[in-house]
């Protein structure tokens, strides 16, 4: 059976919460039931049928034809199936995702993959700030799964990450990997200033260096580690280019010594 397709009728007049349109929530629902799902975030009622033209199909495979930066919480809490978005999404895409696959063919707003537990998210464009990060008041960000951002990511990518993998093929804003608890953040482009700010454990790859490295990181020299070839093999299917360029010796910086200092930043052997 073909995918369940939501075709955007018109620009949404308000921010919409699309967390209800996941395979978990739509499985077994009729077209009329789906059309009646409320998506509004203001007092003006807006149902799925008002915003989208719906073409019924396999609910395990959902496709949004057209996106918008007001599309919030796309794929939030999803645990299975697949969501493809042809267009941009708003805040918290894939928030607390537990499994399945979310593919965004466009840009994502802040807090993409926030608190994600498992599954994969790919963003073909740029991601806003705090990819994988926690919301205000939460102590832990992303705790599993894989996020691939083909473009750039905003500030604090991987904030308070606990486990899992984030690959940013472009650049990041300031403080990538801030307050990391564990997990792996790979930045192929230039990492923003002060990577790993207050990180306790975890690994950051600043493959093209960073504008400023905190003096609370110490240099442990250049190493060709087996662990990095295991990582390269693992990410092959997510980002072949990054995998290929990962297989070489890297300078290992240890920190952040301002906290427990068990984290690491891998960067080019000659820091500029």
């Amino acid at each position, binding site marked *: 059976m073909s995918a369940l397709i939501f075709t955007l009728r018109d620009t949404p007049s308000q921010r919409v919460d699309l967390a209800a349109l996941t395979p978990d929530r739509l499985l077994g629902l009729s077209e009329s039931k789906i059309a009646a799902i409320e998506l509004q975030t203001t007092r003006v009622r807006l149902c799925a049928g008002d915003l989208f033209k719906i073409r019924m199909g396999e609910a395990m495979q959902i496709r949004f034809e057209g996106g918008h930066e007001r599309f919030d919480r796309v794929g939030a809490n999803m645990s299975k199936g697949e969501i493809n978005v042809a267009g941009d999404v708003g805040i918290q895409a894939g928030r607390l995702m537990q499994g399945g696959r979310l593919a965004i063919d466009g840009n994502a707003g802040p807090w993409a993959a926030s608190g994600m537990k498992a599954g994969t998210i790919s963003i073909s464009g740029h991601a806003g700030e705090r990819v994988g990060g926690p919301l205000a008041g939460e102590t832990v960000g992303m705790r599993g799964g894989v996020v691939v951002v083909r473009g750039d990511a905003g500030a604090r990518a991987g904030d308070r990450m606990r486990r899992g993998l984030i690959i940013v093929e472009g650049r990041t804003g300031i403080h990538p990997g801030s307050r990391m608890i564990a997990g792996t953040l790979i930045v192929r482009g230039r990492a923003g200033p002060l990577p790993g700010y207050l990180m306790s454990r975890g690994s950051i790859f600043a493959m093209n260096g960073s504008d400023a490295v905190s003096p609370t990181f110490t240099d442990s020299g250049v190493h060709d580690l087996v662990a990095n070839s*295991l990582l390269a093999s693992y990410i092959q299917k997510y980002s072949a280019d990054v995998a290929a360029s990962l297989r070489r010796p890297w300078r290992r910086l240890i920190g952040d010594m301002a906290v427990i200092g068990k984290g690491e930043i891998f960067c080019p052997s000659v820091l500029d």
Partner: protein
Amino acid sequence: MSQLTVNGIRVDDTFAEAFGMRATALTITANSAAWAHQAAVTMTGFATSVIGCGCEAGIDRSLNPDETPDGRPGVRVLLFAVSTSELQKQLQNRVGQCVLTSPGSACYGGLEADEELKLGNALRFFGDGWQVSKRLGPTHYWRIPVMDGEFVCTATTGLSKTAVGGGNIIVMGASVETTLTATERAVEAIAAVPDVILPFPGGIARSGSKVGSKYKGVVASTNDVYCPTLKGTGRSALDRDIASVLEIVIDGLTSAAVAEAMRAGVHAILLLGPERGALRISAGNYGGKLGPHHYYLKDLLP
């Protein structure tokens, strides 16, 4: 004992009796095939028999770089013991003392199973707080800082409860040389069979044992009925033309693998013929009441 004769070699109408064992497999890698082999040889040393070594271990086969998790040359090792707790103890001690210490080594679980043994989860404490945990998809690794860089290993390895230990072939010949030649041919043939190891030196045991002894507290003693110097004492199982006896003991991850290994070994001996090789083949058993796995030689003939 009734016998068949195949290609001029007498084959006893008997069976090998084998036992259920707990087993695991490991993939050991290093910067070169030689160092991977060294780590594997060291780890599987003094592991010929559970009677005195705690476990039986050996090399299954060499692995090409494209067959290992880290893309380096490797060796697949199998480890067998009589209980899960003993296997866990042997695994931990042997990997900790022999693989962790070997230059450039890494060690990965080599068996997928529902139940698991601790590997890195036990060895990580060597890191004294500097160890790093990494989960890549379903696999959990530990990175332990060591003096040449890092020792990487998986957190666990699979535990098989359906492994088989004690498959065997008894090879008898007219001289020490021809008997050894025939047995060596069998060992070479079995090396190509996956999922089995031959735990004795070079795959061959020259001092097969029987259960018990005339002496109190001795659990195993020489298999006197197969000792050529004791021919004529009344209990000997040897014919007048036999002057030397060697035994191949086989442990496998599955009963089918043990049967396949015995088949390969028996075929190789029969192919060599009686002039240059063995005059007679037999197998060891305890009357069939102790071990659940019986491998009849007549079922393994070409």
